[in-house]
């Protein structure tokens, strides 16, 4: 049994904390409460213990990212699926690519909101595998688990 580190990055207010709450089974936050610096969640996944690192997206905290991202197996870039946010997230992605050693995927969150870009459109822009999600909907928990399972399999982590 091993520990897998999964880190969530993205601009403030895109739903990183909500996705972690979704995965851990906690109720979604009713109002936006920013994460300061970073936060940590944990789930068991097959034989693995998965540490979920929630990295604050505020500019002044981004200097912390390289240190916190160290040892990550998977980095998940979260966007709120608005065109402006996706384009800004692309800049984050370019910064992430400078730090080598982990797989990056994206979540096109807030798919329920009007004007949300479809996951395939977001994927075209970001050029990384992208999955659509509505993190405030507890029913999406299974979908998020499947995303992780699929990615872990690609990373050759045996999930039973």
């Amino acid at each position, binding site marked *: 049994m091993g520990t897998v580190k999964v880190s969530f990055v993205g601009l*403030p*207010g895109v739903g990183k*904390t909500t996705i972690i709450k979704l995965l851990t089974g906690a109720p979604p936050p009713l109002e936006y*409460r*920013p*994460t*300061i*610096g*970073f*936060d*940590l969640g944990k789930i068991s996944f097959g034989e693995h213990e998965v540490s979920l690192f*929630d990295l*604050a997206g*505020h*500019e*002044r*905290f981004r200097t912390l990212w390289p240190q916190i991202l160290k040892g990550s197996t998977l980095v998940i870039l979260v966007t709120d699926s608005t065109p402006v946010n996706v384009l800004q997230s692309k800049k984050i992605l370019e910064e992430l690519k400078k730090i080598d050693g982990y797989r990056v995927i994206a979540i096109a969150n807030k798919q329920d909101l009007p004007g949300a870009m479809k996951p395939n459109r977001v994927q075209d822009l970001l050029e990384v595998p992208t999955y659509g999600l509505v993190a405030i909907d507890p029913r999406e928990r299974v979908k998020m688990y499947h995303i992780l399972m699929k990615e872990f399999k690609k990373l050759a982590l045996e999930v039973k």
Partner: protein
Amino acid sequence: MFEFGVKDIAAIVKIDFDIEQGPVLKEVKKLDENFNVNIEDLFVNIYLWFMGGSLDKPKPRFIAFDEFSIAAFIKEMEVTCVFIKGNDGLEKSMSHIREIVEKIERGEPITEEKKVTKSITRRRRRRRRRR
């Protein structure tokens, strides 16, 4: 544990939170000109120390350093930090705590609290006898 007065206050610093940037230095009021902690360099760290993580987790209210201490007063996302000079009692308190920890690590009983209770009880008995 510690005793502080108005004369010990070196500076008062207000740190607010911007939704895009993160912590922003709102106000610095130095009461002691000799106080040379570089607040500009430190305020993001200070904000992290007192507010780090998700907001629903426990947060410290007071942090003691070798040369100074910081007491924090939190109002929503704004943190008002009071910098206090010196650390009267810190070294003494720390070595006392270390002694207790060493006793626990060695598996020895911690009897100190009982002794204090006994001495208080003895004093009370003496006072009663005098009356």
